[in-house]
């Protein structure tokens, strides 16, 4: 749910990075944080366990520039990927304007990708959203790892609707900003169309 403030002339949107455990959601945010000018970003918050697994969420506020005198601000969140944190994932999806699904390209993680994608659909549906109507993009991460599926294969399984998708290596930053730009653009385009939040 975007928030438009006529007084401060700001448009605020919420983007959630979703995907199976250890697929690189937090790494995406860390790269964005490291490569963004200090004046365009706020503090990055990570609510993580002692072993640096996301416990609740990561949060990064980002300013992307102005459109017709309105400052556009994006709040980026990640969900905890581990299966048993489902209750937390549902909470973080509330009020979402756009989703980045981060898939793990390793063949061994294919089932985890599919399970997480189904979980995303279910959790969105519980809140009256449909993934098919919600702006979303897909990132095939870990392209530098051995034992990975081809992008075509991943696309066939995870992207039947043909939404924008990107290969990535989040640890080096490859594909990270391309993914972010694509989702930001989709979210703003959806708002322009007078939609916003895929349930309407």
């Amino acid at each position, binding site marked *: 749910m975007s928030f438009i403030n006529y007084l401060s002339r700001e448009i605020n949107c919420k983007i959630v990075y979703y995907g199976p455990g250890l697929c690189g959601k937090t790494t995406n945010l860390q790269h964005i944080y490291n490569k963004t000018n200090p004046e365009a970003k706020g503090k990055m918050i990570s609510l993580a366990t002692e072993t640096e697994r996301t416990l609740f969420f990561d949060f990064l506020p980002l300013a992307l520039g102005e459109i017709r005198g309105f400052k556009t601000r994006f709040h980026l969140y990640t969900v905890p990927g581990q299966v048993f944190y489902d209750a937390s994932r549902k909470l973080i999806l509330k009020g979402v304007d756009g989703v980045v699904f981060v898939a793990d390209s390793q063949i061994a993680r294919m089932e985890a990708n599919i399970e997480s994608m189904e979980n995303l659909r279910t959790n969105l549906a519980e809140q009256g959203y449909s993934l098919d109507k919600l702006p979303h993009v897909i990132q095939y991460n870990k392209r530098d790892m051995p034992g990975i599926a081809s992008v075509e294969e991943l696309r066939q399984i995870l992207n039947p609707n043909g939404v924008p998708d990107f290969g990535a290596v989040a640890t080096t930053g490859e594909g990270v900003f391309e993914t972010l730009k694509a989702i930001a653009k989709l979210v703003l385009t959806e708002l*322009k169309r007078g939609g916003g939040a895929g349930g309407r």
Partner: protein
Amino acid sequence: MANPQMVMYEEEFNLIQGIVDRLVREANAQVVFIIDKNGQLIAASGETDQLDTTSLASLTAGNIAATGGIAKLLRENEFTTQFHEGERANIHIQLVGNRVILVVIFDNKTSLGLVRLRVKKASEELNGIFEQLLAKVQDPDHETPFAEITDDDIDNLFND
């Protein structure tokens, strides 16, 4: 409409800011702020210079969401009030109209009793204003700044 968009106009903002400013004074608080349940800061008053209000807003909303999740598991509607006591700072968190969150940060210059009393009064007033705001947003004639935005405007945002 499951999840109506939050829009803030000057008229309502001034009313809300007035209530928040008054609450700082009357409760003798350090900081008062209002955020929506998604973690967007709506208004703030008091000694906000030293505070990272964006982070605070996001974490408070996460806190309220988690508490709401616990309430649901216990078949409660919501836990509308939370209070955290520290050595120097205390924080009182109040859910208003199940839509926005009123946060008061205070030290030992005031008391929890006074804060609660003032928060109760402010909550009632805020509830009315947010209902009015919601009605305005749901009015089919209400304008959005997006109507005039072109695809080129959006593209230009991403030209490095």
